[in-house]
């Protein structure tokens, strides 16, 4: 095991004890990137080679010079006896949907959103969560790939190819949209990663890549400097190798930000201190509505099935383990509006996406068509036509349609009411005076494990249903955590999910930590992703 394979907390402890230096940790990480990542995503990548098919391709931009400056600064502080910060020397990656200012002016750090339309954009400021991680001593090693503007669940829609591949099997997708984030953490190319979750975009790739992913409560982590998708749903959050790393990172990035008025004025708990308290007396629910899934059929119908047994088994086992540790498992919690999560999301997220994408017009920043045109409106159209890929175009068009005056009542207003119903399911489940009084709901994270490259991409309906078990909590705004919980018969990771009431991240992490400890000697935990074998 190399330094870059340790968890964040272990690294911080080694650094503080002066057993390793931040520069050594960074060098191990950069060496790993050199071994497994292959060529970085780019706009003009040419055809995929056989070698490409065996690599991870997590990165769009490697910021190794910036990282070296930061690592040296941490080592200087340690040498001078100063406090280097809670994330001192921990290498992390950033989903390339966050603006990062190129403070060291070394070779340019674009903020691309994995889109041609922003490929040349250099942000004049840094997103709050990134700034907080760097201020805490974290070392940013690079910006990682994603679905274009986060629109997807596989990363295949990125304009920067080759798109990331799953470190457990490079013929499979890493999930998305924080696919580069999850892949980089799984492959030891970053100990932590900053992702975003709008319908499951942290938890689904975390599940597919066998890492921990946290979608915090809406408003818990600032969106300042995040390139917007659906502003009422977007949540920045951590991807980490274990629960302690996720807790450490969330501690750093959470909290009020005067630059994002939707960050809530709620004190940030001490997530690490709460971790080891165990689950005795906690009430953890299971819902039949999370043990059945909806699958779109090729002829446009929707079929309901039981969850695959392989996906359900780790959830049941986790419930048994938590019960043995003193939690009370509450069965049959009704969450009847779960199945409407995707249909409502198709409406709400598209309206917000279309609104947010109007700003890309080839005037103030980003891509402008090189064609000579004499009319401003023609310039808009050509710039947007050439700059956006298919997925942004699809979202803009749907957003325009369902919010048009004559359809708005039928679609958008109705979807917003359905969101109230989804929220109500969670309110009833978590009501401390209600019939269930849950501290958390335990569910699978995804309906399947990672699918093969090219198997789903192109079918936008099937792709969206990959998020069916994660999206309800985005509608409701409540926090969720995905935890690795085993491997399927083909050796791909399976995830389980914990959902909790608003601002209950500490409890979810605490349950996650108890589960992690109860399974630490499991055989599957000893298996490494294929790219590391």
């Amino acid at each position, binding site marked *: 095991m190399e330094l870059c394979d340790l968890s964040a907390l272990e690294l911080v402890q080694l650094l503080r004890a002066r057993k390793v230096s931040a520069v050594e940790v960074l060098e191990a990480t950069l060496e790993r990137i050199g071994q497994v990542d292959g060529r970085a995503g780019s706009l003009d990548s040419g055809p995929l080679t056989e070698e490409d098919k065996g690599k991870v391709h997590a990165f769009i931009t490697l910021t190794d010079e910036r990282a070296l400056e930061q690592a040296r600064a941490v080592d200087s502080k340690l040498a001078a006896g100063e406090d280097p910060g809670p994330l001192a020397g921990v290498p992390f990656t950033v989903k390339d949907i966050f603006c990062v200012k190129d403070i060291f002016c070394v070779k340019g750090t674009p903020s691309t959103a994995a889109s041609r339309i922003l490929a040349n954009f*250099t942000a*004049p400021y840094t997103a709050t969560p990134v700034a907080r991680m760097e201020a805490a001593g974290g070392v940013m090693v690079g910006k990682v790939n994603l679905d274009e503007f986060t629109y997807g669940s596989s990363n295949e829609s990125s304009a920067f190819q080759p798109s990331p591949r799953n470190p457990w099997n490079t013929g499979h997708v890493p999930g998305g949209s924080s696919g580069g984030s999850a892949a980089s953490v799984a492959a030891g190319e970053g100990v932590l990663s900053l992702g975003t979750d709008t319908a499951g975009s942290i938890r689904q790739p975390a599940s597919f890549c066998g890492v921990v992913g946290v979608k915090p409560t809406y*408003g818990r982590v600032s969106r300042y400097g995040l390139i917007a998708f659906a502003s009422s749903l977007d949540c920045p959050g951590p991807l980490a190798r274990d629960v302690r790393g996720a807790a450490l990172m969330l501690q750093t990035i959470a909290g*009020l930000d005067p630059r994002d008025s939707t960050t*809530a004025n709620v004190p940030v708990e001490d997530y690490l201190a709460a971790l080891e308290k165990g689950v005795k007396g906690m009430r953890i629910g299971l819902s039949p509505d999370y043990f059945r899934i909806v699958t779109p059929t090729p002829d446009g119908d929707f079929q309901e099935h039981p969850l695959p047994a392989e996906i359900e088994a780790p959830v049941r086992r986790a419930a048994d383990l938590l019960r043995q540790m003193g939690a009370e498992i509450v069965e049959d919690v009704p969450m009847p509006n779960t199945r409407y999560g995707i*249909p409502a999301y198709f409406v709400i997220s598209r309206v917000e996406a279309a609104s947010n994408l109007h700003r890309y017009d080839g005037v103030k920043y980003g891509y402008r068509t090189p064609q000579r*045109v004499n009319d401003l409106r023609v310039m808009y159209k050509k710039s947007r036509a050439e700059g956006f890929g298919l997925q942004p175009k699809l979202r803009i068009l749907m957003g325009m*349609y369902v919010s048009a005056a004559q359809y708005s009542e*039928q679609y958008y207003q109705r979807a917003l009411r359905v969101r109230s*119903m989804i929220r109500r399911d969670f309110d009833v489940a978590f009501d401390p005076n209600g019939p269930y009084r849950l501290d958390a709901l335990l569910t699978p994270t995804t309906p399947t494990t990672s699918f093969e490259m090219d198997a789903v991409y192109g079918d936008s309906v099937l792709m969206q249903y990959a998020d069916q078990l994660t999206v309800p909590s985005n509608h409701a705004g409540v926090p969720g955590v995905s935890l690795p919980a085993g491997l399927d018969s083909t050796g791909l990771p399976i995830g389980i999910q914990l959902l909790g009431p608003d601002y209950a991240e500490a409890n979810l992490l605490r349950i996650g930590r108890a589960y992690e400890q109860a399974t630490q000697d499991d055989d599957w935990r000893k298996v490494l992703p294929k790219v590391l074998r």
Partner: protein
Amino acid sequence: MSDAITPEIFAHLVDLAALELSPEEAEYLRRQLNNQLKAIHELEAIPLDEALPVAARGVPYTTAISQLPRKDEWKPTEKPEEIFQQAPQFDDGYIIVPDIPTTKLD
């Protein structure tokens, strides 16, 4: 079932969205939109209480946890050139664009 989004409606949407599409893109995108609408139609089967409020977001914001509006204070940008230099065409303090079409009113 016939397509809810006909080629005519689709062409109107493309124009509103300030896009231009190749015939292949248009065919793919229109088919995907109609497929997505089939999923969205599930919402129509849900009996909705008229009194049910719309939720602009999931988490409720009470006065206690909401931020006060910040003061309306002017803060100069330190290096405006860092912002201007992002413009695809910039000259002598102006962002340059092609002609803005105008119509003469009688």
